[in-house]
């Protein structure tokens, strides 16, 4: 499985046709197919290409929603 640094992950921000990746607890998920991640943004406050581990702890939903999407790699720095 591919390993991502935070800098590499940041390239997948969902803008200008790039894939939309987010990290959670060391895993990198591809959320490109999600209606709720259009243009690399989610519910105004969150951006793709980042580690959402801390943000998800405060979100009104748990990781179960993220786990519907394919894991495409591992975040090295986590």
């Amino acid at each position, binding site marked *: 499985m591919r390993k991502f640094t935070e800098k590499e992950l940041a390239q997948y921000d969902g803008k200008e046709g790039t894939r939309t990746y987010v990290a959670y607890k060391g895993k990198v998920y591809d959320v490109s197919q999600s*209606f*709720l991640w*259009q243009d690399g943004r989610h*519910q*105004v*406050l969150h951006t793709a290409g980042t580690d959402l581990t801390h943000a998800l702890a405060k*979100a*009104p*939903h748990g990781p179960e929603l993220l786990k519907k999407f394919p894991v495409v790699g591992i975040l090295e720095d986590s």
Partner: protein
Amino acid sequence: MAKVTREMVEKAGVNLDQLVELLVKNAAAELTTYYYYTILRVNLIGLKGEGIKEIAETARIEDRNHFEALVPRIYELDGKLPEDMKAFHDISACPPASLPEDPRDIQAMLTVLVEAERCAVRGYTHLCNLTAGKDYRTYDLSQAILNEEIEHESWFSEFLGEGPSGHFLRRGETSPFVSKFLR
């Protein structure tokens, strides 16, 4: 625009641009859900479908009420609505509540309905969290809508066999919580 209103909310530490965008996205979700629920409702037919039609209709009408109640708050805070319907659809805070491939599959219909309500419950919980103790009017409105979305979720959840909702269906009037914003 309500100038002092904006000032008070901003002074309380709320990021107004983010708040307004969230309100617009949730209003868009209500309007598009109203549309999608119209299609779901007319397809709730047969012995099983007819039993769900009434609550789908109540949820549909109340979602439209939520849209109507959100619009004045958006304008008070100097926000504006999209200029065309496609934009409303595309910026929605929730995914489309599309008709399942087989509309006779009642489980699939109920799953679409309950997931739409769960998205709304998350959205208004988020708005309540952002505005609690800071923007009293948006909080009050979001909380009122949240109360109704929670009831919708529990109705559909009950039909899915996940457990009892613990309350009865509406008797006549709709939007018992949000109606004060519709006067």
